[in-house]
């Protein structure tokens, strides 16, 4: 009699525990969620649904130097969370065996909305992005085959792949897709600007910020379009040919009209992503604005928008520059830098 009661109690408790486990995990991890003030994402979620285990596996891979030839460099070495996933302090990225690349590491942020990747848009599918740094001899210097073998032979990865995909098989597709799951979750959408747009917490712009926003919309908005502050097109903003004579989009299309054009970068989180431009040539926002106001170089492919006025570029008074910068500051999202889910565990 007594035993039976204990058994029943045990079974009930076990049942409650078992039931609880699932919803608890699900509650904690909502997967990919589109911020209400953002457009529909461009990424193909239908072939890669973000799951808790897939995301966590991707995060582990992102921070694991096992992905590089001498096991010293991880994705996170060049894409540092506290700098909005850019390579803080480096004009151009710095990879394996202390070699330098020729381009500034862009922030990994809001990748799900990107229609192409890299400054020249040479990569068209986020899933294939990781192959480039892993196999690049100045970045991680590895071969894909060797990375997969290292993972297969490791203590922990086979079990983590089983958790994420139901099988211990580690192949190109599930490896790359889990890294995508992590980078897709690097969503920055909690700046002051976003709160104002979503009418959250009673946040409003100051007068200066409001005027700055109007200026940005009018003078920069064709290229740096709200709410992501880029239209994802390739343009020449007249910064002039750089040290490395990087021809940008032309390297992909071989079309002369694309010479020196680069993908328009977002204006979010600029406070954490200096230096600026594809080769990191400008160190402050003031220099960037001075460039647009008076430093634009003439080249055949210079964007027509920068030719509309008597002098090349965008006329800006000192007062206007101040207002623009105060609006740009509302685009900084500190919570993105502090989000524990995106940190190395």
């Amino acid at each position: 009699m007594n035993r039976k009661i204990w058994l029943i109690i045990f079974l009930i408790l076990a049942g409650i525990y078992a039931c609880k486990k699932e919803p608890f995990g699900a509650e904690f991890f909502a997967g990919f969620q589109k911020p209400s003030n953002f457009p529909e994402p461009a990424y193909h979620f239908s072939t890669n649904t973000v799951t808790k285990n897939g995301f966590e596996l991707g995060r582990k891979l992102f921070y694991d130097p096992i992905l590089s030839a001498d096991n010293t460099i991880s994705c996170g070495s060049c894409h540092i969370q506290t700098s909005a996933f850019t390579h803080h302090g480096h004009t151009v990225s710095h990879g394996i065996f202390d070699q330098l690349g020729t381009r500034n590491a862009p922030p990994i942020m809001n990748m799900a909305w990107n229609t192409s990747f890299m400054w020249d848009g040479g990569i068209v599918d986020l899933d294939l992005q990781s192959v480039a740094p892993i196999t690049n001899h100045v970045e991680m210097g590895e071969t894909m085959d060797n990375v997969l073998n290292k993972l297969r032979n490791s203590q922990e990865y086979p079990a983590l792949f089983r958790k994420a995909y139901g099988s211990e098989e580690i192949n190109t597709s599930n490896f790359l897709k889990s890294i995508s799951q992590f980078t897709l979750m690097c969503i920055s959408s909690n700046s002051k600007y976003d709160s104002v747009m979503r009418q959250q917490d009673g946040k409003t712009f100051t007068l200066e910020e409001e005027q700055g926003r109007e200026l940005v919309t009018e003078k920069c908005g064709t290229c740096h379009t709200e709410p992501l502050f880029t239209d994802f097109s390739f343009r020449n903003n007249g910064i002039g040919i750089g040290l490395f004579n990087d021809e940008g989009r032309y390297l992909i299309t071989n079309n002369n009209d694309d010479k020196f054009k680069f993908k328009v970068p977002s204006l979010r989180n600029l406070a954490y992503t200096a230096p600026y431009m594809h080769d990191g040539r400008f160190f402050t926002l003031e220099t960037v604005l001075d460039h647009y106001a008076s430093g634009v170089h003439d080249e055949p492919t210079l964007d027509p928008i920068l030719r509309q006025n008597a002098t090349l570029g965008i006329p800006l008074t000192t007062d206007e520059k101040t207002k623009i910068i105060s609006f740009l500051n509302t685009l900084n999202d500190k919570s993105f830098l502090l989000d524990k889910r995106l940190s190395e565990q």
Partner: protein
Amino acid sequence: MLIARILRLLFNNKNRLRPYMKKVIFSTLAVTFLLLSCKKNKEYNSSVLADLTVEFDQVAGSSDLDLNTGSYTNAMGQSFNVTKVKYFVSNFILTNTDGTVYTVPQDECYFLIDESDLSSHMPLLKVPEGEYKTLSFMIGVDSLRNTMDVSQRTGVLDVSGAAADMYWTWNSGYIFLKLEGTSPDVSAPGNIFKYHVGGFGGYSSPTTNNLRTVMLDLTSGGTAKVKSGKSTNIYLTVDILKILNGTTNITLGTPTAEVHSPVAGEPLANNYASMISHDHTEN
């Protein structure tokens, strides 16, 4: 009337020939049956898929291709040797002598021919039984597959495996053909030249399209008679000299010893479009 009479004669109980006639009828029937079934044997059952191999034999003009050791001369009079020849072939289509066209399902239809790996020279296709008079295929990887989800890129298209050195990571896309070698006329270090041709026409903005389709008429060299239980091999010769000689005669090392972009590869693609010819068919 006549038939009735004969029958009556034959089956007449009083006919002394009757026992023999039975045998005669029986054998006639048997022979007819055998003849019929023989005839049937020669015919193809188009609902049955059978093996067909297509062999790619690399040659350099009139001599066989020997990697590393063989010395060859291009149309510009430069001597060179070859260290690597690798290319993708895909999208096979065959025309039956009765005019019907068979497209090999795309999923089974990507092959990477590597001169240094004999086992890659004879792709195996499954095609309906029949006699085929033309064969066509693509040199390269079509644009659809070039932009397909990574989970569809398996086998020779796996960027961690067979395709690891046939893929441009910085300009997402497969390299269709690689020709590498050395020539005293190339001034680059080690006298090395590397010609990598790719470019499927671009994803969002149009770029050079170096996909080339090869169309071969098999009638003079022998049609392919494909039937299950037997092996049929379409034997092709691939003249690697024609990668360099053709519409544009390539000067090794000039303007560069290396080609890595679709636009620079275009003259090579125009040349290699006609490097493959049908030699004979082994039926």
